[in-house]
């Protein structure tokens, strides 16, 4: 199994499209850093101007901690796309390319092939998250320095002390990884049914967008649906910056994310191990 995981990672490593995700993250994050470095203070002054009657804000607001938070918020839509771009292709790309029929007739079982691909997808997702973390948090701190962090939430303003932030990012990135793994499993699931690379990416993004729109609309009917939408629980990483941290809520959301991941992976495995390979 380890040998097959290595093979799948090698395929990802040698495939040019795998680097598009890393490149896109690098460009987006660097652009945000540049933008915030040049005009970030004005941007923050504008945001906090609405509070100037209620609060007296003094000291350094534009810190690496805040920049990392802004970056994470902005990449909510892009990151799933970048993950789906590679994971949606991992089975269907081989089906359309004709290489799946070479692999499926080899001595290793389809389950071995399936899980080696899935684990490779998980590792790729992890690398994307780590890279995002390095660029957002580490580069943010290098450029903007450390400091207390003010987080604007719907319930109000949360102020976090400098020494109380980094561990929250650690957990936030772990949660973000599992949330993106859910997206990877969804794209992977659709990939096991599709015979071209584009369909899984388009369907995955379509589902994310529909789910996000439903989750955003304040319509009574949707209030019943929202708790079961996976996108509702994927953004639970934000709660890591609440005071106190609502651990029960986070654990519940992570359980739902985990259940979705298992469901999508289970469906994909069931189909992949039984389907006739005709391509």
């Amino acid at each position, binding site marked *: 199994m380890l*040998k*097959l995981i*290595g*093979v799948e990672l*090698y*395929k990802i490593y*040698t*495939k*040019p499209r795998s680097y598009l995700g890393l490149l896109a993250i690098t460009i987006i994050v660097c652009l945000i850093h540049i933008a915030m470095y040049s005009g970030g203070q004005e941007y923050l002054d504008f945001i906090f101007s609405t509070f100037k009657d209620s609060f007296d804000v003094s000291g350094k607001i534009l810190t690496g901690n805040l920049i990392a938070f802004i970056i994470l918020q902005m990449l909510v839509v892009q990151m799933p796309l970048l993950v789906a771009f590679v994971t949606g292709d991992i089975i269907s790309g081989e089906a359309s*390319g*004709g*290489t799946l*029929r*070479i*692999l*499926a*007739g*080899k*001595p*290793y*079982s389809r389950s071995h092939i399936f899980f080696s691909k899935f684990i490779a997808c998980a590792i790729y997702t992890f690398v994307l998250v780590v890279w995002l973390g390095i660029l957002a948090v580490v580069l943010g701190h290098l450029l903007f320095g450390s400091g207390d962090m003010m987080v604007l939430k719907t319930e109000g303003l949360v102020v976090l002390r400098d020494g109380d932030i980094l561990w929250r990012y650690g957990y936030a990135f772990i949660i973000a990884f599992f949330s993106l793994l859910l997206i990877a499993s969804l794209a992977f699931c659709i990939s096991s049914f599709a015979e071209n690379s584009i369909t899984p990416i388009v369907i995955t993004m379509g589902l994310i967008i529909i789910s996000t729109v439903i989750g955003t609309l304040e319509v009574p009917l949707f209030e019943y649906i929202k708790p079961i939408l996976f996108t509702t629980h994927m953004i639970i990483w934000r709660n890591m910056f609440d005071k106190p941290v609502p651990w029960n809520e986070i654990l519940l959301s992570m359980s739902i994310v985990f259940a979705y991941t298992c469901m999508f992976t289970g469906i994909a495995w069931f189909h992949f191990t*039984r389907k*006739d*390979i*005709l391509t």
Partner: protein
Amino acid sequence: MSILSVKNLSKTYQQFKALDNLSFDVQPGQIYGLLGPNGAGKSTTMRCLLTLIKPDVGDILFFQKELKENRREILNKVGYLIEKPDFYNYLSAYNNLKLLSKYSTNKIEDKAIHSLIEKVGLKGRENDAVKKYSHGMKQRLGLAQVLLNNPDLIILDEPNTGLDPQGIVELRDFIFELKNEGKTVILSSHILHEIEQLADSMIIINKGKSVIQGSKEELLGENNLHVKIEVEHPTQLEKILLHTHWQNKYKGTHDTIISFDIEKKEIAHLVSFLSENKIGIVAVSYRKKLEELYMSLTQNTNA
């Protein structure tokens, strides 16, 4: 003792019956030809042998072992090239072979990979990306891939497709070489002349069914010719045949044409017999070439 035994294999796609109770045996060291028109079920059969397609019913035994229960052990001894040679186009030929070698349960040394590259005539181009390869070069790489795990049994589905005449001759020599090394080859092809030259035994499939099968000697040899005699009064002849030894060799009547399976030397006796019985003979023909056998059988089953 068969190296491969297929028993009562059936496969239906929705309403379409791709394989219908197909059975055949392949002996070790043979080149076995699989013939049939497009959609006859050749590729479906080969895909079933490699577990790419799950048959609805039927048994497949390799090396006297059930495929379902011994998949890993069996497929480690099988090399295959199904339809066109597809590879990871962004990788070089060497890296493709290296990568695919990892799917074998045996350890395949780098030396063996280089030796295969040389064997198929790709030395000097092994580090080029496969996307730069011509179809012929991909086919060569496909053959190298087939031999990666040093298989005992090789399955080649339409390996001639897209090859130029020189490529076809080289492929033929390559397959003979494999046979001389003691390997068994199962080969499907549309080029009947190739199968006729290569195969020791063959099966003709049409609409998922076996139309005829046997050794080349049995099917195409002079000891068993399919003779067609066009006569003026076929009904009268059928009655006469009833009381003679020709009845056992009589295969049927189609309009005014009566068919027999007989040896070449018996044709003269049969003609004499018909003349003695005042049966007017219009024409006598027999087929010998695979093309004639193939066309007659597939047209009969299509009728």
